[in-house]
């Protein structure tokens, strides 16, 4: 006989849902407007999306820290708020990139913007919970929207990219579910805080280690797919190549940071319990990822593919911090991605600005290195800006990513993994080669005749986004202090 359950509204603590409700509401509003009046310009939807995200940002900021809600499924702790803020900033910078001077297919549909907002809701759900089912639902909501967004670019390449991403993503989701099932089988719970308790209690049982590590392995594979760690990275360069430049830039940041947060909740639980196998698994994956992807990035002919491999390598770099299990290491992940966001999105925006409708420079690629040859003569400002982004990605001070690298390596050194820190340092040196290659093309090679109209896709909103990115990249040293103390505080109050 089922007992009626009485739940008071106050106990549900619906406020923890407010950020997601805002974006979902915003998405519905966009659909509604489209229903009422056709032929509205994309600029309206862009600005509406920005506004919705802005309100969402406010709602996220005003959340109480470490609040649970909705039958304890929602968890708004420090890292979830940090992750949501990062996602929202990246999204607010991303969406105005629709306002290009050339017309692109996807932005003529209001559904694009609605889907985009739904996707953000999915990401927010994913980071704001420690319930494996809820993480899965968030992941799927976001991913399904993202596949569609990629396909809407409507080139043969983008269709291929979307399908590739979809199949790989489906596989990753499968692994995640299997991992969650194993965890559930072992502990009888999908709530990670319960899971941790049961694990602790059963740790000493003989033969428990194998299913324990097996479950972790399955979850690791799923996370590896989404963060694109080698050997689960195969989809990444093709998907980035097929997707539009800003979408590729967006994918190199937001899905990764959300999955990092999931990894922090799931894998860090194992590391925290002292399961050394998981720690070493993470370290080995991280080292393999950053090293091999650097090697592969060196031989790329297309800047976008190079940036794809570079973002894999950055993900590996950050992943190493996950194995350390210190507050500083977790903070360094957020700091790194917070800074990486501006630089990388800026670099992809620069590619977007130089995008032509036709492939004028190469039969396959939109952005081969040759296209940027002698850019300093044809477009000095553009060359300098792109060079700043590349130097930042290399980790040359005083540009922003240097501080991120500094902090991540410092966290590694503090945790006693000096050899790992040296591997990371050497990898940064290898990476310098391919970033320099672009600088060499832009500054040191003569321009190719007939490429005058390099900034074909430029428009004022794009310039503003690039300007913001440059400003953050160059002047980051002045915001490091408040940023660091905020991140440190948020991470440490979450108990990491």
């Amino acid at each position: 006989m089922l007992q009626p359950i009485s739940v008071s509204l106050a106990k549900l603590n619906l406020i923890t849902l407010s950020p997601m409700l805002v974006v979902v509401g915003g998405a519905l509003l966009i659909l509604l407007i489209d229903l009422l009046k056709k032929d509205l310009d994309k600029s309206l939807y862009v600005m509406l999306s920005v506004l919705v995200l802005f309100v969402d940002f406010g709602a996220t900021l005003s959340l109480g820290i470490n609040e649970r809600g909705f039958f304890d499924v929602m968890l708004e702790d420090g890292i979830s708020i940090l992750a949501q803020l990062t996602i929202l900033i990246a999204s607010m910078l991303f969406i105005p990139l629709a306002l290009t001077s050339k017309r692109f297919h996807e932005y003529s549909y209001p559904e694009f913007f609605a889907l985009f907002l739904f996707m953000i809701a999915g990401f927010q759900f994913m980071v704001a919970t420690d319930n494996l089912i809820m993480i899965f639902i968030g992941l799927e909501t976001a991913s399904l929207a993202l596949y569609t967004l990629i396909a809407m670019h409507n080139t043969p390449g983008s269709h291929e990219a979307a399908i590739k991403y979809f199949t790989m993503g489906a596989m990753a989701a499968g692994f995640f579910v299997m991992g969650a099932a194993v965890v559930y089988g072992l502990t009888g719970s999908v709530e990670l805080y319960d899971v941790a308790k049961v694990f602790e209690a059963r740790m000493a049982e003989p033969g428990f280690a194998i299913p324990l590590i097996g479950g972790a392995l399955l979850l690791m594979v799923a996370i590896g797919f989404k963060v694109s760690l080698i050997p689960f990275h195969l989809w990444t360069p093709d998907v980035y190549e097929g997707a539009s430049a800003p979408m590729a830039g967006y994918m190199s940041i937001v899905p990764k940071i959300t999955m990092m947060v999931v990894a922090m909740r799931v894998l860090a639980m194992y590391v925290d319990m002292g399961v050394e196998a998981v720690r070493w698994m993470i370290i080995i994956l991280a080292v393999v990822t950053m090293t091999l992807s650097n090697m592969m990035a060196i031989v790329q002919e297309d800047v976008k593919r190079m940036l794809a491999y570079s973002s894999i390598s950055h993900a590996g770099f950050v992943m190493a911090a996950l194995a350390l299990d210190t507050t500083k290491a977790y903070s360094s992940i957020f700091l790194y991605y917070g800074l990486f966001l501006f630089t990388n999105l800026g670099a992809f925006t620069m590619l977007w600005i130089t995008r032509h409708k036709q492939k004028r420079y190469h039969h396959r690629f939109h952005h081969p290195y040759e296209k940027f040859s002698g850019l300093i003569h044809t477009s000095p400002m553009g060359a300098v800006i792109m060079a700043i982004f590349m130097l930042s990605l290399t980790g040359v001070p005083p540009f922003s990513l240097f501080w991120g690298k500094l902090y991540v390596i410092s966290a590694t050194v503090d945790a006693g993994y000096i050899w790992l820190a040296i591997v990371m340092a050497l990898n940064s040196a290898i990476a310098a080669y391919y970033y320099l290659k672009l600088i060499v093309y832009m500054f040191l090679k003569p321009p190719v005749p007939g490429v005058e109209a390099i900034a074909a896709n430029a428009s004022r909103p794009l310039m503003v986004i690039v300007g913001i990115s440059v400003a953050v990249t160059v002047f980051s040293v002045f915001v490091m202090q408040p940023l660091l103390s905020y991140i440190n505080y948020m991470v440490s109050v979450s108990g990491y």
Partner: protein
Amino acid sequence: MENILSVLIFFPLVAALLGFLVKPQSIRAYGITVAAIEFVLTLWLWMSFDASDGGFQFIEFFPLVSSFGINYYLGVDGISLFIVVMTALMTLLGIVTLGEVKKLKNMIISLLFLEVAMVGVFVSLDAIVFYLFWEFSLVPMLYIIGYWGGEKRLYAAIKFFLYTFAGSLIMLVGMLYVAYVYHEVTGNWSFSLTDWYALVLPISVQKWLFWAFFLGFAIKVPMFPFHTWLPYAHGQAPTIGSVILAAVLLKMGTYGFVRFSLPMFPDASVAYILPVGVIAIIMIIYTAMVAYAQKDMKQVVAYSSISHMGVIVLGTFAMNPEGIAGSVFLMLSHGIVSGALFLLVGVIYDRRHTKLMSEFGGLAAVMPKYALIFGIMLMASVGLPLTIGFVGEYLSLAGFFKVSPVMTALGGFSVILGAVYMLSLYKKSFFGPVTKEENKVLPDLNGRELAALVPLAAIVVWLGVYPKPVLGPIDTSVKALVQFMDTKAQTPEAKRVIHVSKSTKEAK
């Protein structure tokens, strides 16, 4: 002016940014003026410097990232003061002699950015700020070599960048570890050098940190076997690039030894005198022999500059005031002399567009002034007494003599072999009959070139005869440094090798 060091850093920076707005036809005058003002400012710094104080002066402190211990922390002592002055001087003279190059405006702006980085390296007392300038100096240099260089410029520029970048990242890991140890000991984060000096590290930690820092500095110096980037860089770089590279950028490495390795890891430094000394001697003898084998004048100067850098390293690791003061002085004289030699090679290259010695011969008859100044610089490079080269070289070797007479004797080959390759260069190019028709009509030095080279020749003679105004402040600071190392040293071996009390008595 209390904050003169900030002015020295930010004045060229602002000037470089404003330079973008100056019209190309006036940019040369702009560059010269800015560099001259910067040089006058460094002279002012020298004048207001208190020579009797061995510690840091003109200290500026401003927290940048306080929770992580990164501060904007500047200061000079006798060791860095003259390198800063020399930096400004060589930049100024480099800009003055700049020939007709393509995109002069970009060149001048790059040089000003480079000056910011160079001055910054020598005046920062915070490891991260030091590292910031240290790395940033690569960027303008990459552009200078890569854009204005010779045929294989891209290869040379990228090799230069990657080599130094890789080395300094390892150094960065070392720095982060020191900061971590400091945090463990005191509970605070700090990257301030003066805080780090106070840290007494266990010997085992010192040993690996020594090598981490060593790698960063050794690549910059460049020490054998990491020197392979330099001949390429020099060979391909335009004259101005070589001048700055030889005069200032290489000094960053040896300066790093004096500023970081010695006071932070005195025991490890003493323990590794032998391997470092052996490397330095290989560097001295091997590169001198390579220099002799070169056909290209510029390569001779390039290899000779590596060879003399070996003497600087030897002097630094003498661990006594004479050796270290000598090596600091040699940094200055090497900067002036090798800078001048590169300028001189540039002069002839501008006229003939070749640097092969076989293309010349009998230049002394055609270009007497040129031959005279070249002769003076050559003598200084060899280390002839009464030239600037002698003082530093003698003191460095004399200092190292106390450590190991045998190795000093081998190090003395720098002088002998230096004379061999330099004089043979001089003989082949300047004496004998004028063999090539086109050499007969070469114009002698013009006003601009004289304006740059005559002051350098005057400095060479002046400081060779009377080095005291420069050597005095250096000596005061170096003594303080050695005194400090002596107090800090833990192992009996280090106590024995670091000569301080005896030599201060001698000085009195």
